[in-house]
C-alpha cells in the first residue's frame, strides 16, 4: 500500500515537473505578478516558487520554478526564450528558461526505488582509505565549482560594465548630435560642405 501510494505521488510529481519551467537570471525585484504578466502572452502560470539561495556565498541572480498549465505551454516558453532574448524587468539582460528537473524541487516527494543503503566504515577497514580520498575529492570538486561560479560572476560584471560604458558613450553621442541639430550647427556645417540635408 505504502509503495503504490508513493509511486502514484511520484508519478503526479513527474507530471508537474514536465509542466514546470525553471526561470533563471531574474532580477531580485521580479515578483510573482511580474512573471505571470510576462508569460501571459504564451502561457498561463499556475504557481511560482522562488529558489532560495542557501549554498552560494555570492550575489547571484534570482531564480524560480514556474508551474504552467500544460506541457505544450512549457515547451513554447522554452523555445521563445532560446530563440529570442526575452527580457523581464529592466534591460538588456535576458532571462533563461529551461525545462525543470525533479531534483530542482526542494519539496519533492521521495522517488520510490532509490537505493538507500548505508554502511559504516572505520579505521582499519579496507575501504577506509579510499573513502577518505573520495571525501577529499568531493571537497576539492566543491571548491573548484565555487571558483568557477566566482569567475563567471566576475565575467558578468565585466560585461555589464562594458555595456554600460558603451551605452553611456552612445548616449553622449546622441545627445551631442541632438544639441548640434537643435542649435543650427548642423545647418552651418552642411552649408560649408555643400551637403544637402534633405537627402
Amino acid at each position, binding site marked *: 500500500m505504502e509503495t503504490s501510494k508513493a509511486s502514484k505521488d511520484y508519478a503526479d510529481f513527474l507530471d508537474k515537473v514536465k509542466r514546470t519551467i*525553471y526561470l*533563471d*537570471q531574474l*532580477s531580485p*525585484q521580479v515578483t510573482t*505578478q*511580474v512573471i505571470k504578466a*510576462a508569460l501571459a502572452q504564451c502561457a498561463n502560470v499556475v504557481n511560482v516558487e522562488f529558489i532560495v*539561495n*542557501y*549554498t552560494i*556565498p555570492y*550575489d*547571484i*541572480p534570482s*531564480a524560480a520554478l514556474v508551474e504552467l498549465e500544460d506541457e505544450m505551454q512549457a515547451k513554447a516558453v522554452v523555445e521563445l526564450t532560446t530563440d529570442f*532574448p*526575452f*527580457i523581464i*524587468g529592466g*534591460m*538588456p*539582460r*535576458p532571462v533563461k528558461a529551461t525545462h525543470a528537473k525533479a*531534483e530542482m524541487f526542494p*519539496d519533492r*516527494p521521495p522517488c520510490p526505488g532509490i*537505493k538507500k543503503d548505508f*554502511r*559504516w*566504515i*572505520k*579505521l582499519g*577497514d*579496507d*575501504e*577506509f582509505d579510499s*573513502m*577518505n*580520498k*573520495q*571525501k577529499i575529492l*568531493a*571537497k576539492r*570538486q*566543491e571548491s*573548484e*565549482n565555487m571558483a*568557477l561560479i566566482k569567475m563567471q*560572476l566576475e*565575467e*558578468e*560584471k565585466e560585461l555589464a560594465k562594458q*555595456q*554600460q560604458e558603451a*551605452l*553611456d558613450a552612445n*548616449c*553622449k553621442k546622441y*545627445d551631442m548630435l541632438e544639441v548640434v541639430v537643435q542649435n543650427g550647427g548642423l545647418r552651418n556645417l552642411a552649408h560649408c560642405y555643400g551637403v544637402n540635408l534633405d537627402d
Partner: protein
Amino acid sequence: MNGNSEEIQFSWGKRRGKGGAKMDTQFYESFTLDNVQYSLYDCVYLFKHGDPEPYIGKIVKIWEQNQAKKVKILWFFFPDEIQRYFSGTVMEKEIFLASGDGIGLADINPLEAVAGKCNVLCTSKDERIRQPSPQELAMADYIFYRFFDVKHCTLSDQLPDKIVGLEVTILLNPKDEQVISNPSAVNVLPSPNVNEGLAATVPPLRSAVKEVGSSVAAVALPQPVSKEVDVNPPAAIPLSQSVVKEDQKPVTTIPFSQSVVKKEDKKSVAAIPYSRPAVKEEEKPVASTPPPRSAAVESVPKNTESQNAHAGERPPKRLKLSQEATVNTTSDVAEIRPLELPSLQADRSKWFNISWDEKLQIADDQGRLVYIQNLDIRFAAADIEELVRGALQLSCTARPINHPTYDDPNNGKAYCIFKSKNAADLAVSKINSGLVIGGRPLYSSKGLLKVPKSSGTLVGHLSVHNIKITQKQREEQKKAVSTSHCSQPNTIEYDLALDWMLLQEKQEQKFRILHKKHKDDRQGFASMGSKSVKAGK
C-alpha cells in the same frame, strides 16, 4: 545552556585522580572537544597566536583546576626548527620528539588551544617500541625515531628510558588502548549507570550506534541497581574494557578524518584557532560551570565510557537529567519500529506553521542545525530523514538545498534540524567518522552557511544616465521594471541582449564540462577504490 552556535562543544572523558596542594585539581584521561575525542598520549596540533603553521605535541597530562582546563604538551620539533644543531638527511614526514630536561621540552597550555588530532608514529627500532605495520606507516601524518635533547641541544636515536618523567613504554605506541584504560577503570568504579549499561549489553557491539541503545537501558535503572555494582566489580571490569575497546575504534576514526580535513583547508583551520583561544578566555567561566551538568546529560546518550563519577555526589539531579535523556532517547528508539509514528511526528510539527527559514534560523541559534554534503542529489527530504533515522537513530527535519543553476549536481547538500544540540553534535561526529551511503562518503558540519543578502538589482540591468527625465517619465520608468518584452532586432538593446545570451551559453558550457569531469573523476575513483580492495583481498 543552549548558547549561541559559536560555543565549541566540550565534555570531559575518563577521570583519573585528584591532586594538587589543596586537592582541588582533577586529572583526566580523555576529553571531547568540538566532537573529537582526545586521550592521554595522543598527538595533537596546537596553534599559537601569530603563527600560521601549527605545532605538534603529545598530551601528557590533562587536568582542571579552579575552573581552568589545562593540558601539558610534550613537543615535537620540525626539521627546520633544529636545523642548526645537526646536519644530515631527514626522512619524509619526519619530526623529532623532545627529550631531556629544560625549556622547550613541554609546556602547559589551555585545553582549548588543541586544534585537532595528528597521527604520529614512532618508528624507532628499540625493542620496547611496538613496530607499526606498513598500513599504519602509510596512513601516518608524521613519523619520528629520533629525539632532540633540549638541554644539550643534541639529536640522538637512542630511546631514553623516561621522557618528561613518564616511562617511554607508556608514552609511545601503546600496544592496545586497553593498556591505558585499565588502571582508571579500577579507580572510577562506582558509577552505577554506566556499568549497568555494560552489563546489559554483553553481546559484542559492532558500532558506536548501538551504544546509544545500551545507555538507554542503563539510564532506565540507575538507582535501585546501584548496590549490585559493588558486589560484581570483577565482572564489570572486563566488560568495561571490552566495550571501551569497541568504542575506541569508531571514535578514533573521527580524528583521522579531522586531521585529513585540517590538511586540506589549512586556511580555514588557521582562522578558527585564532579566535578560539581568545574567545575561550572569556567563555571559560561560562563553559566550565555547565560541564558538570552537561557531562551528565551528554555522556549518557553519547559515550558509555565517560564514567560519570558525579553519581555519588548529586543523585537527585542526575536522576532528573537522566530521566529527560531517557525520554528523548526512548522516543527516538521507539520511532524505528512502527511505520505510523513518523507521520504523526511530522504532523505535530505542522501545528506551529513556522516557515522553514525561520526554523532554520532558530535551529542554528540553538546549535541544532547540521549541514550534510555529498548526498545523492535525487534524495528527497523524506529519504534523508529516513536515512538519518536508520543510520544514526536520530530524528530530524531535512531539506535538500542545492541551487539548480550553480551547485554541482554530483554533490547533494541538505540542511538537517535535530531535536537537540547533543543530537546534532552526535550526528556530525558520527557522519564524519565514516558513514557511507550508496558508495558516497558523507561529510557534515554544523551551522548555517553564510550567504550574502541579495543586492536588489541584477548585474546587467543597465540604466541610462545623464538624461533629464520629467516626473511623468520617472513614473513610467518605475512601472517599466514590471514589464517584459521580446527584444526586436532593430534596437541597440538587441545587440546587448545577444551579448548576454552568448555569455550565458558559454557559462553553461563551462559548468557542463566541469560537472561532467567531476562525475567521471568520481566514477573513476570509485572503481579504482573497489579494484584495490578486491586486489587487497
